[in-house]
Structure formats: structure tokens, C-alpha cells
């Protein structure tokens, strides 16, 4: 895009304005902030799944590692959230790179399967190491971050909503800049044909690992935010279903584009809030959508629309 500034400024204004406007409507604010968090996750998933062609079903596991680590540092070691958040994010992102190593050896389905194994192991570990994670019961009453402006105050409610909205916005903007950069195009070359990409001079190993690192940064940065936003984490928050749901938001909107995950997240993220108490119904709807997207619309909504709009070539 040649003139991105109006769009950037407009979207930033929206991200600041929306939480402020909804300050008096907690339920609506909860839905909107939840959607911003999902936007962050979807943008990170899209870098790997959409641009690099590697589907990491261990995505939510990374979020979990970061969330548990940050909560542990805050609640047990007495760290400030503002110190624990970046530390937990970096540690979990490096774990994400380690978990991405199989992608250098395994292609296609076999990597997806190995990432499913990794995700299952992580979920089991969150449950099994109950002394650290409180097992299936989860950790509740997670304190909000301390306020960066008022000594002794806390950042809750609208302040936290604003923080998450800004992080979500930054995540999408950064993924958009990355996708348009030479690095993003190299990822596309790796996705389309890794061997040909190598022949054309692309360092495939570096590109894959870098993509894993950046994508894991997204997954990891969101974990602590999710913990303080919801105030509760349990192994179920970071299980295979969570990974699949993020993948669905990306695939439903359209993989490998910036607009796709935006569309997918804006449609799907608010859904569970309206089905409160019937969360299994959400599972059924999401499951049916996963099937529908895979069977009928591999390009997602975005792909479907741009196919319609593109003039037919002879």
C-alpha cells in the first residue's frame, strides 16, 4: 500500500476510542478486548500457517507457557507484571523456536502431527505439574498489573482494555509490515516450494526458525495479557482446542493475507460470549466451521471475495 498513514491513524484511533467509549459497558468491553487478544494470536498464527505454510497446533501451548511463567513470577516470586511479562514472553518464544525444530525435518502432515503431539504433551504437563500450575483447578484471582502511572494503583478495567487493544493493533500492524517486506516474501517462497526457494538463494532454515520465533512471540506476548484480563488460567485455556480455534479464525478469514485473519477474528471471536453457558455449542459450531473451511473454502472469506472480484482471465 502506497499511503498507509490514514489507515494506520484511523485504526489506531479506533483501538483507543473503542475501549474508552465502552468504559461504562463492561460486557461489551469484555467482548471487544477479548477480540483484540484473539487478533494478536491470529496475526501470529497467520505468519506461520498462512505465510510460511506450517500449521503449528502447539500455538496455544506457547501462550500457556508464557502465561504460567508470568503468573508464577508475579504471584510467587513477587515480580512486577511489567518485568515478568517481557521475560515470560521471551522465554516462551525461545521454547517456541525449539518446538519448531521438527519443522526443519518434517514436511506437511507429519509436522502438523508432531505439533499436535507437542501440544498434547504441554497440556498434560500443565495438568501434571500441579505444584507449579495448580493442575486442573487452574490459578484464579490473578492480580491486575500495577499501574505504570499511579504509584500503588492497579491497571484494571478500561486501562487494561486499552493496553490489550494497543498490543493487538501493534501486532497486526507489525505482521502487515513483515508480510510486505522481503522477509515476508521469502516466507511465501518457502511455503510455495522450499527446494526452489533454496535454489533461488533463500536460507530456508533461517526463514523457518525466524518465522517460528516471531510467531511464538505473538503467542507468548498474549499469554500474560490473557491471564490478567480473564483473571484465571487453567490447562483448558491452552489446549489443542485453543490452538485449533486460532487456526480456524485465520483459515476462516483467509490465510496468507492481512485482511483474512482480521475478518475471521472479528466474526468468530465474539461468538463464545453470546453462547455463555452453552460453550459446547461453540465447540460444535467451530468444529463445523473447520470442516466447512477445509472442504469448501480453502481460501477463506477473503479468498472467496477476491476470487469474485478478480476479472476472469482468458
Amino acid at each position, binding site marked *: 500500500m502506497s499511503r498507509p498513514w490514514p489507515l494506520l491513524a484511523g485504526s489506531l484511533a479506533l483501538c483507543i476510542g473503542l475501549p474508552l467509549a465502552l468504559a461504562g459497558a463492561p460486557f461489551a468491553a469484555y467482548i471487544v478486548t477479548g477480540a483484540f487478544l484473539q487478533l494478536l494470536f491470529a496475526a501470529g498464527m497467520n505468519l506461520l500457517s498462512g505465510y510460511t505454510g506450517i500449521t503449528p497446533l502447539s500455538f496455544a501451548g506457547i501462550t500457556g507457557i508464557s502465561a504460567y511463567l508470568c503468573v508464577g513470577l508475579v504471584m510467587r516470586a513477587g515480580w512486577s507484571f511489567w518485568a515478568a511479562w517481557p521475560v515470560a514472553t521471551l522465554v516462551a518464544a525461545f521454547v517456541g523456536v525449539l518446538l519448531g525444530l521438527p519443522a526443519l525435518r518434517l514436511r506437511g502432515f507429519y509436522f502438523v502431527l508432531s505439533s499436535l503431539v507437542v501440544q498434547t504433551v504441554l497440556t498434560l504437563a500443565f495438568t501434571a505439574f500441579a505444584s507449579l500450575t495448580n493442575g486442573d483447578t487452574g490459578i484464579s484471582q490473578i492480580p491486575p498489573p500495577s499501574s505504570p502511572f499511579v504509584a500503588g494503583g492497579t491497571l484494571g478495567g478500561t486501562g487494561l482494555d486499552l493496553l490489550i487493544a494497543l498490543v493487538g493493533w501493534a501486532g497486526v500492524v507489525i505482521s502487515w509490515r513483515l508480510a510486505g517486506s*522481503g522477509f515476508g*516474501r*521469502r516466507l*511465501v*517462497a518457502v511455503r*510455495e*516450494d522450499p*527446494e*526452489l*526457494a*533454496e*535454489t*533461488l*538463494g*533463500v*536460507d*530456508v*532454515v533461517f526463514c523457518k526458525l525466524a518465522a517460528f520465533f516471531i510467531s511464538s512471540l505473538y503467542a507468548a506476548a498474549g499469554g500474560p495479557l490473557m491471564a490478567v484480563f480473564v483473571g484465571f488460567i487453567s490447562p483448558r485455556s491452552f489446549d489443542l482446542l485453543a490452538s485449533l480455534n486460532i487456526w480456524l479464525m485465520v483459515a476462516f478469514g483467509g490465510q496468507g493475507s492481512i485482511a483474512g485473519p482480521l475478518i475471521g477474528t472479528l466474526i468468530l471471536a465474539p461468538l463464545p460470549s453470546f453462547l455463555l453457558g452453552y460453550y459446547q455449542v461453540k465447540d460444535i459450531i467451530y468444529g463445523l466451521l473447520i470442516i466447512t473451511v477445509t472442504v469448501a473454502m480453502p481460501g477463506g472469506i477473503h479468498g472467496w471475495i477476491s476470487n469474485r472480484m478478480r476479472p476472469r*482471465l482468458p
Partner: protein
Amino acid sequence: MTALLEARGLSRRYGGVHALRDLTVTQHRGEALGMIGPNGSGKSSFVNAVTGNIRLDTGSVIFDGTVISGRPPHVAMRAGLTRGYQAVRVFATRPVADNLILAGLPHHSDADRLLHDADVADILAWLDLAPLLERLAGALTLFEQRRLELAMRLLAKPKLIMLDEPVGGLSPVEVRAMMVLLRELRARCDIFIIEHTMHVIRALADRVIVMVGGEKIADAPPEEVLRDRRVIEQYLGVSDA
């Protein structure tokens, strides 16, 4: 003449079969080198081994002063060595313009201006690709795809391009057109050509290596190779009727 490519003692075994057996090949600057041999004689394995697409059991490859053996293919590429594939290899699901942009990435910082670059425009005009920019690469004819493949490789301004049967599968008219292009290609970079048949090699190569069973059985200018009794017995007498 100085050596551009020096491959020494290359060996590669698959189970009990030698794909390459102690193969030494030198290509000089300004020289067009050919390689012929029957199916399975190790021609493609040689290219794969030189570019780093397959691992070597033993042997070393030095290209333009850089050791590239044991390194991934992008290292060879960055040293100025590129290749084509026997089964033509382009990003089939993307338009031709995208293919060129993806291929030009490592060498042009501004991908969006790439197609307007004078050098690039010159290559596109030479290979007559400009009218095809919007078409999907997978929907092109084989000849068009081979030209696209050539253009993608040339964006890197390579010193040597290794081509694996570049006229394979083309119609007789296209073969003649391709051979004209390959002769003109020599003005842009040195070439190494694998071929199945002798007449293409004779027209294009200054020197030819004859392969049988992963080994080199002759290494001389085409006219001399044609007189070599061993070559005639081993290869030409059998398959090049």
C-alpha cells in the same frame, strides 16, 4: 583459462548403488561444458551434489574460490551458481510477475520496483516474457515455463547456470528456438548443460563429459568424444541412434 567450478572426487552411494563414483569435473571461465550419458548415469546427481541439493559421501566443490560442498543450496546460489531442473520448477500457483519478484528477492531490496529495473526489463524482453506477466505460471506452456525458469535464475546475475535437459519435452520448433536462446545465454553467464542427446551438446558445448554408472568415461571437445571408441561402445552405440 582459470577454473570457475572445481568438483573433486565426488562420491555418493544409495544403498549398494553408486550414483557418483569418485567424479572430478572442472569447468573454466568462459567455457560451455556439456554432460551426456544414459538414464541413471549420475548426470542429475552431479548437479544436485554440486548445488548442495544432495549430501556428498566424499569430495569437495569449490566455486569461484568459495567452498560450497557440505553447505545448503542458498550458499552456492549466493556465490553465483544457479541451476534449472529437469522437471521445470516454478511457483506454479502464482502469476509470472510474482515468480519474478520471489526470485529477485535476495538480490533486489525493493521488490515492487523490480519489474521496472532496466536489467530485468532486458531479460524479460529477451525471453519474450513481458506479455505473460499476469498469467499463472502453472498455466503456461512448457516452453514458456522454461523461459520463466531461466529468467528467474538470471535475476541473481549468476556466474554459472547449470541446466538439466533444457530442451526436454519441447516440440522440434521450440527446441530450435531454445537452442538459439541458449547460445545467446552465453553472453550473460557461463553454462553447464546436461543432455540426453549428442546433437544438442555438439551445438552448444565447447567440451563434453560422458558419464556411465556415476563415472566419467570421457572428457574432451565434442568431435573428439564422438571418435572415442569407449564412448561409442558404452553409450552412443546403444542409445543415440
